[in-house]
């Protein structure tokens, strides 16, 4: 089969666009959707601030071990000499702040709080990001299937989502985390706790994103460009991956960014309740539990992990809101 190709001089002459385009070609350069979104995002000061903080946090979490080595910080080194045994509180003002311990030390063992916050960051972020990935993965796959195929597939997936949403998540998480024994999945200790937390948090949050994706898919499926692509011979998987998916990236990305802070809080809550990360491993939720027991003698201890969680959650939320505004093609 030959291609319908042959440019005639007449066809170029017939279009004034052709003449006009030649003039201002160098000035007008096409911008991709990503570039447009980035321009919009740069203008949003709050989102930029959130983004910068998120980048710093991720770097801190990823490089927590080297940072500790370079600055000679040890989250588990006991400094009993810095703690007043009678009061069960750090010696000195402001929770024992000093040049050696910029954020003070913890009241029980005199461990350096800066080191513990840095050590806790990778646990918090790993659990939150991991759990978010799990729920986005399950939610997107099931949501797209339900939305695209409809019929009984949709009924099954939708009822499944209802079931999961009706689950008493916190109780389930507590009992599951408490009952998992060492050696499960061939993991022990810290890796096991992290895996269990990722699974519990991620596996029960997928219906939220699943619903969003399902609704988006249902409305996209009826759009004319899908019919147009079908009229040119597209198959089902092609339509899902090449026509629908590019349109779903923005809502998925925004929702995932907003899900991360929720999951950070949930991890902290579980650790606070004593079923998350086990001591002596530092974690932000675990530090809060500790601090809650000693608020009468050392109130300042509570602020360190509290602020860490607060700043992280706020930064992710600002970033997510900014992404939503930047990626929405309707906004100017």
């Amino acid at each position, binding site marked *: 089969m030959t291609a319908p190709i042959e440019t005639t001089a007449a066809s170029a002459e017939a279009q004034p666009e052709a003449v006009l385009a030649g003039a201002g070609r160098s000035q007008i350069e096409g911008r991709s959707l990503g570039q447009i979104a980035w321009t919009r995002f740069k203008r949003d000061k709050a989102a930029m601030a959130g983004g910068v903080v998120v980048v710093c946090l991720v770097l801190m979490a990823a490089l927590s071990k080297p940072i500790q080595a370079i600055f000679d910080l040890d989250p588990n080194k006991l400094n009993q000499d810095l703690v007043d045994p009678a009061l069960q509180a750090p010696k000195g003002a402001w929770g024992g702040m000093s040049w050696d311990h910029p954020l003070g030390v913890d009241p029980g063992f005199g461990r350096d709080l800066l080191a513990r916050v840095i050590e806790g960051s990778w646990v918090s972020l790993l659990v939150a990001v991991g759990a978010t990935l799990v729920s986005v993965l399950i939610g997107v796959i099931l949501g797209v299937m339900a939305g695209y195929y409809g019929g009984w597939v949709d009924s099954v997936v939708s009822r499944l989502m209802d079931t999961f949403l009706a689950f008493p998540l916190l109780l389930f998480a507590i009992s599951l985390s408490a009952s998992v024994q060492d050696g499960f999945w061939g993991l022990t200790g810290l890796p096991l706790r992290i895996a269990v937390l990722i699974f519990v948090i991620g596996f029960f949050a997928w219906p939220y994103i699943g619903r969003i994706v399902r609704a988006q898919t249902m409305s996209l499926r009826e759009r004319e460009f899908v*019919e*147009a692509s079908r*009229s*040119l011979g*597209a198959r089902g998987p092609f339509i899902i991956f*090449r026509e629908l998916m590019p*349109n779903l990236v923005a809502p998925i990305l925004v929702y995932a960014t907003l899900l991360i802070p929720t999951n950070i809080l949930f991890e902290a809550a579980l650790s606070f309740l004593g079923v998350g990360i086990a001591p002596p491993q530092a974690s932000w939720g675990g530090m809060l539990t500790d601090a809650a027991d000693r608020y009468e003698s050392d109130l300042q201890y509570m602020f360190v992990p509290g602020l860490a969680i607060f700043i992280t959650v706020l930064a992710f939320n600002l970033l997510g809101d900014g992404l939503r505004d930047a990626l929405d093609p309707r906004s100017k």
Partner: protein
Amino acid sequence: MALLSVDELTVTFGGRGRASKAVDGVSFDVDQGQVVGLVGESGCGKSVTSLALMGLLPSKGVELGGRADFDGTNLLTMSQRELRDMRGSQLAMIFQDPLSSLNPVVPIGVQVTEILQRHRGLKGEAARKEAAHLLDRVGIPDPTRRLKEYPHQLSGGMRQRALIAMAVACAPRLLIADEPTTALDVTIQAQILELLKELVDEEGTALLMITHDLGVVAGLCDQVNVLYAGKVVESADRHELFAHPMHPYAHGLLESIPRLDAPRGEPLKPIRGSINDRIAWADGCAFAPRCDYYTMECLTGTPALTEPAAAGHQVRCVNPVREPVEIATLDTPDVTATAHGGTSA
């Protein structure tokens, strides 16, 4: 034998009791290199006919009848799998609104190369070259730059050109254009029609033109079928139809085109009433309630297609109109006239 031969095509929507016939025994032929028009107002079954031919109607709640032979095989009984391979390579369609027919978040180039990859197995650099060639072919200037752009960065006319490029990418033998110029302004309309004409002349593609715009028909179509309430009411050669419209509906359509040379203050002549799907052809002529010429005879059974005057000029009417219509574009029905007569009929 014609490339596409549609014989007594019926499309029925809805289940028992509430079924409504959107297309009711439509027959027409399209030859290679021929442009056939399906004309009628909204709701007369034009678009449903085209979707039925492409196999794009939903499988549930729709009943198809009759035959639509494309190169000897009946499109209506083909499996979805066979049809899918035909679409894009043998049959292709151009839609009404070019903006909503292009994926908003995928660059034009990717959308064009995907078709080349699907049907012609072209990949990478070869596909990109071919895509640029195609855009050039449909008159998009600076095609290599345009390939990287997104639909919202193109003008309406450019988008429609891009869609046409996608439709003709694999040199289909039949092109169905469903009101391809409705969303465009009149100067762009004329350019797009010119482009379609060129494609038909140079490639020998058969074109089924679905439109409500008699200006488009005058400029492009060789053979015209006027549809009313799911049935062909008049079928004739373009010149014959414009010179001697015999069905009162076709007559009314031509008369309702506003004329530049009409005396000041003369009222426009619309066809009164609107199409009504509760009026069935079985009880008589479905156009009778809106017709100026109807008699009691019109209400006794479906009128048959006859050739009361010239050979090949079929009319479904018991009282065909004999007087010609005076229209401004009568003498020179060509593309330049469409730009002026191109307001909705």
